[in-house]
């Protein structure tokens, strides 16, 4: 049966815009009950609600797949565009250029991003287009019934028994290599961490990649799968505990124990507080990021948390030196040069 993503919250709770969580919900999910993607949807709703982003100033983009359907299930008041398989990044880029004021959130699958869409994914990162890029990663093509995707781990088994012999495309490793300024990994069942990372991503100015392991209960949740709930739970290694102090609420009720935490400031003044777990991890150190990913990959572990952060790079829209107003809103008078200009051009051709 189809499930509703959003258990009703207590009606009274409102965010800084005076909106209830309800204002951040969308249509009814049609995914399989228990699908990891639905949990991610729930955290997206929660993160946007808590951060207090106006849903009408958001645009949602996606490709094709079970995962790519989910933008219909959150932020119903935002415009959304769900195009073709693997091309979500180009949508984000165009929407950014046309209207720089909109917050862009993109949802993709591992097939959508790492198989057919790998080129666009890399080029989006290279441009540093401002988008929260969520990969709902289940290692298979859910919607076409469970074939391996390019993120399938080496040695993982298909439902039918076949073993994958190729190494996975590691979207986080790739993102770091390509100079992405915000790279995080999480697990759809790790609600708290996922929400915190989403909130951090909302504050980032540039491409924020969130690779979220999100089990496919129907096709890839069997014992020999490395993307099952059980395997993921057993092998998850969180880098740190994460909390966000929004810029609009600097006195947030986070209890910080001195010496055990690291603070990182985001683009708009919000802060991430990272409580160290096993070891102290510095997400602003690119070399360490690469190494940690590589090490955990070799150990068969699954590292979660904020892997890499660099807030210094300019977003693509900034690189384009655009006027402050959205291009989409400019009136004819600012878009069509005056007759003098045309005369000048004609003279140059005489």
């Amino acid at each position, binding site marked *: 049966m189809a499930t509703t993503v959003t258990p009703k919250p207590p009606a009274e709770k409102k965010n800084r815009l005076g909106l209830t969580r309800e204002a951040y919900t969308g249509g009814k999910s049609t995914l399989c009950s228990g699908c990891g993607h639905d949990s991610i949807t729930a955290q997206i709703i929660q993160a946007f609600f808590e951060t207090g982003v106006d849903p009408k100033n958001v645009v949602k983009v996606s490709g094709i797949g079970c995962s790519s359907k989910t933008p219909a299930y959150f932020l119903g008041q*935002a415009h959304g565009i769900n*195009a073709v398989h693997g091309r979500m990044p*180009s949508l984000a880029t*165009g*929407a950014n250029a*046309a209207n720089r004021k909109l917050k862009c959130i993109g949802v993709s699958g591992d097939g959508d991003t790492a198989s057919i869409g790998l080129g666009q994914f890399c080029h989006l990162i290279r441009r540093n287009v401002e988008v929260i890029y969520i990969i709902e990663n289940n290692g298979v093509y859910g919607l076409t019934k469970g074939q391996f995707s390019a993120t399938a781990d080496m040695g993982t088994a298909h439902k039918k028994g076949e073993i994958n012999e190729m190494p996975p495309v590691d979207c986080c490793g790739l993102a770091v290599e390509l100079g992405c300024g915000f790279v995080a990994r999480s697990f759809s069942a790790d609600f708290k961490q996922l929400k915190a990372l989403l909130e951090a991503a909302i504050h980032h100015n540039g491409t924020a990649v969130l690779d979220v392991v999100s089990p496919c209960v129907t096709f890839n949740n069997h014992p020999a799968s490395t993307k099952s709930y059980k395997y993921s739970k057993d092998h998850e290694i969180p880098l740190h505990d994460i909390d966000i102090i929004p810029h609009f609420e600097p006195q947030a009720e986070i209890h910080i124990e001195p010496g055990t935490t690291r603070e990182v400031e985001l683009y708009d003044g919000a802060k991430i507080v990272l409580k160290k777990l096993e070891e102290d991890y510095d997400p602003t150190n690119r070399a360490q990021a690469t190494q940690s990913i590589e090490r955990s990959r070799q150990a068969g572990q699954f590292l979660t948390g904020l892997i890499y952060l660099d807030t210094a790079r300019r977003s693509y829209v900034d690189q384009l030196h655009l006027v402050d107003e959205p*291009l989409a809103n400019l009136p004819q008078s*600012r*878009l069509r040069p005056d007759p003098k200009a045309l005369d000048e051009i004609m003279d140059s051709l*005489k």
Partner: protein
Amino acid sequence: MPSENSQTPNVNDFSIHVATINGSGSQTSNNVLMRTIFQMGVPVSGKNLFPSNIQGLPTWFTIRASKHGYIARRKEVEVLVCMNPETALDDLKALPPNRVCIYDAPLKLSNKRTDCTFFEIPFARLVAEIPETDARLKKLLANMCYVGVAAELLGLDLAESEKALMKHFKGKTKPVALNMKALNLGVDYVRKTYPKAQVPYRIERMNATGGKIIVDGNMACAIGALMAGCSVIAWYPITPSSSLVESFIDLAKKYRHDPQTGKATYAVIQAEDELASLGMVLSAGWAGARAMTSTSGPGISLMAEFAGFGYYAEVPAVIVDVQRVGPSTGLPTRTQQADLLEVAYLSHGDTKHIALLPGTVEECYSMMQDAFDLAERFQTPVFVLSDLDLGMNNWMADPFPYPTKDFDRGKVYTDADIEKLRAAGKKFERYRDVESDGIPWRTLPGNPEEGGSYFTRGSGHDEAARYTERPEEYQRVMDRLARKYETAREWVPKPELTGGPVADIGIIAFGSSHTPVLEAMDQLSADGIRTAYLRLRALPFHRSVQEFVALHPRVYVVEQNRDAQMLKLLKADLPAELCTRLRSILHYDGLPVYADAIHEGIKRMEVPQRVVSGGKGPGTRGEE
């Protein structure tokens, strides 16, 4: 009428064919030669025949001067300039008897034929005299030197050449002086060596180019896009389309920055490929910007999937296809009109697109503006089909008029509209046919009024933009889309009629075949065949196309492709009983079609005993 080497010289009605090597800077000399004639008031056109490589391969440039104002390609050549050892023998062989050949001395061509007048010029030796220049520059100057030779032989006004150089070098006097020196070396050499030379071709001042501009179609499209307020371009370089966007960038840098802040009112995104280009354009158009891309055949093929999305999800986009020779990579630097069928039905499923067919550089300018208006009015991808001949060759034209119409942004509900709807107890439904013209209303992202948002998708949707798989809901949207396409027939640029109304036969053509058809009409008229010519300017066809065909017993469809693509589109659209009247004139060897080919093709079919032509050699093919 080839001009024979007779007593009365041919004035202002001949062609000069210059064979050089690409990457050797001959472009500048060719342009100076052409501009000199132009500035002397003589109608002129220039066609560049260049290879698909960067340096070292043969290139030809043909300048046609025509007192009649014919600016189409001519196949016949009167004055040949041979600078390229690789092709010199072939070039000379193709020259008809009694013509003039100027050649670089080491080529020693004069002993190859006796029926031509030769001018042997030691270009390298001549420019060697110019001090302080490196090897590369020497080559450039040798090319400029030939302009001097031609100028002297054909009676060109050197002051106009100097003016042309001033224009080229944007007033920088040093290079102008240097080039003039080379040019004069050519002049002097001819005077000294061939003092009594008399060639039967002369350029004499006329008054037929006053106030005109010379421009290529890509630049004209760029100016059109600029004036249309295009604000987002996503593109991927490809010959022969690149210069369109590159021209736009140059123009926009000058005319589209905010005077106060210096910031841009446009974004040009060099995408990673054409799939991404169209994805960016579609989402930008969806978000409310006037967005376009420009490409050529291979790029159009890569856009097939996204084009279908644009059609079905109803998203505006302008897609320019500067056609080159296919199939596949084909001949990237040759011209053809062979993407019609591809574009008309681009994408799987029931898709059909609006396409504009500029036939002149003026229309490149105006139709780019039409394209943006139509894309937003019809909320759909609109294609503009140019080609290499139109896009990259130099065309004489009247200066482009400042647009008189405001932008048509189409049916966009504002916040206030949404509020009004709500007040009236109604709801915004994205895909409802409110005015029965098949065109629904849309809203833009960032619309802060509740109820104004919708979810856009390429999967099945009902009139309220909700996902559906219900047969009747799916079909309702598809039927409305078909209705919308019918509405477009009245909105797209109408066909243009020349000649007639009473005529023996009809001619249908489009795009860059326009000028050769005009010339062929005169030729046919000289043969006693009266023609009426309907120039198609858009898909879908206006009803006047049907009326035109109904008026003529035989209608010749002239097109530059092998498969009679336009004829197929006409057959698909016209009542079957009219289709019997259609005949094909096909030209598809990669060079622009020329008047003689059309003239002869039609004449052959118009003589009583029809000659059916089969797999003949290259050239134009006439078919019933």
